[in-house]
């Protein structure tokens, strides 16, 4: 029972506007690749954890078995995880627990979401209802508006600039252009980013992640099985999770996500590392301000210095802590359930040394950070070779 839990296979579906597939077919694309990567058959899996964030996006109430059944898991146990935008990471933690608790040796984790079919206004409405429907939604709040309010507070308190926000977008689009699974594979200039149309001041179009369809899958296994299946298992050595108030107005500060600070402290403690030892990180950049707050809350820089951190290119490969080398939610896309699983895939690739042009040389320790709602959920995972 002191066995480690490792990642033995990864598979990523193409993110984008996927009019060719519904949820089950997208999931199949990711699962097929994960099984190929692990060189195992679906019969070798003991159970699945399916991360789908929203029944309305899935056009299916209780959507998990749709995926579990379609990919051929049959009568095996299935669990659904849901944690809004952090659904994928909640699924990873649930699967880790199943393995660690001894209920399964090998677990298939699938994150998937289909969002584009609803259109922007309707999708915005659905996501808005992840805010408190009694006291916030009735005023017309949207998720961009929550993060825009945090951005305004951060700019006011720390002098963070709109240019610094745009710099996050430029970086993530640069890396996204190198990621064949990304929704938008196109580098942008700072000027393009700055001049795009306003969504919620200070956030413009290029400060906001995309509405995408997508899926991602990983195979988690206990130490014995992970070593048997994979030549390069990657170990999940630290897990942290935390929550926060449902209403933004109850937060004592609007310039940090307290859930991130608590979750990462737990994850570092469990893995026995500090922020300095992180070689590569994927963080929750649903909006550019979220990535800047993540730099600070994860300890990559001091509170209030996040704007400076990107301005000095400390989050580029070659900087202090490379962040979102896969393009992030910003350019890769953010199909809610798939995002956390996709994060795990990027870190696994980096630690395996398989990230190609985006490779952080010699990366040994990685971190993923996934936020649900506006910090009502935060999951942080530490990975090592």
């Amino acid at each position, binding site marked *: 029972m002191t066995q480690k839990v490792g990642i033995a296979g990864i598979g990523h579906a193409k993110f984008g506007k996927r009019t060719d597939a519904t949820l089950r077919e997208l999931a199949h694309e990711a699962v097929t690749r994960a099984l190929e990567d692990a060189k195992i058959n679906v019969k070798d899996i003991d159970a699945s954890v399916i991360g789908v964030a929203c029944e309305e996006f899935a056009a299916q109430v209780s959507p998990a078995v749709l995926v579990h059944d379609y990919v051929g898991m049959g009568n095996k146990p299935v669990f659904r995880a849901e944690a809004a935008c952090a659904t994928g990471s909640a699924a990873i933690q649930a699967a880790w627990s199943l393995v660690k608790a001894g209920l399964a040796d090998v677990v298939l984790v699938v994150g998937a979401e289909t969002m584009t079919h609803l259109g*922007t*206004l*309707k999708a*915005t*409405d659905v996501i*808005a*209802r992840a805010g408190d*429907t*009694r*006291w*916030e*939604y*009735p*005023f*017309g*709040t*949207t998720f*961009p*508006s929550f993060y*825009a*309010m*945090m*951005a*305004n*507070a951060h700019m*006011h308190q720390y002098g963070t600039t709109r240019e610094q926000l745009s710099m996050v977008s430029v970086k993530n689009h640069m890396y996204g252009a190198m990621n064949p699974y990304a929704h938008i594979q196109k580098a942008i200039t700072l000027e393009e980013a700055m001049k795009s149309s*306003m*969504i*919620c*001041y200070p*956030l413009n179009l290029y400060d906001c992640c995309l509405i995408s369809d997508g899926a991602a899958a990983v195979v988690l296994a206990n130490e014995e099985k992970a070593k048997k299946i994979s030549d390069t298992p990657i170990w999940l050595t630290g897990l942290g999770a935390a929550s926060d108030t449902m*209403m*933004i*107005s*109850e*937060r004592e500060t*609007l310039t940090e996500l307290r859930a991130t600070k608590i979750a990462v402290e737990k994850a570092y403690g469990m893995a026995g590392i500090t922020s300095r030892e992180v070689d590569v990180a994927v963080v929750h950049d649903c909006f550019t301000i979220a990535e800047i707050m993540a730099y600070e809350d994860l300890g990559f820089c001091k509170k209030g210095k996040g704007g400076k951190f990107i301005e000095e290119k400390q989050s580029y490969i070659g900087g202090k802590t490379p962040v979102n080398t896969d393009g992030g939610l910003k350019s890769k896309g953010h199909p809610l359930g798939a995002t956390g699983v996709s994060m795990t895939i990027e870190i696994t690739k980096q630690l395996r040394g398989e990230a190609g042009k985006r490779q952080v040389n010699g990366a040994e320790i990685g971190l993923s950070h996934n936020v649900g709602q506006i910090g009502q959920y935060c999951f942080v995972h530490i990975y090592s070779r």
Partner: protein
Amino acid sequence: MKFGYVSCLPETPLITRFVEELNNGRLMGTKCEKCGAKYLPPRAHCKCGSADIKWYEAPRRGKILTYTPVVVPPESMSKYAPYMVAVVKLEDKTRLLAQLTGVTLNMLRVGMLVQVITRRVGADRIAYEFKLV
């Protein structure tokens, strides 16, 4: 009378009472008789677990903590967009989110003084909102 511009939750005694008071010009929160915690908007129970709750009238003045204009609204709010939302810290330190009306973006700064007023929305809806003082 229903609460807010749009709603999807059923009415309960708590919200019915709150709306009634708001309609009579009173902004009411709840206070825990056991630990003293104050809640605005109101709650039927305290986070300490107690159900020993008393209504109180909240102050109507506060300072803007943050704000943003919503240009792309939820579908259900299409006919109201664009509009400004803000979080305000009231004089007794409780914090409230609502729309902020009668303003343009370039007028606004964090820290500006506002007051909370009652807002009727059509014939059968009511909300509170902020106005610059």
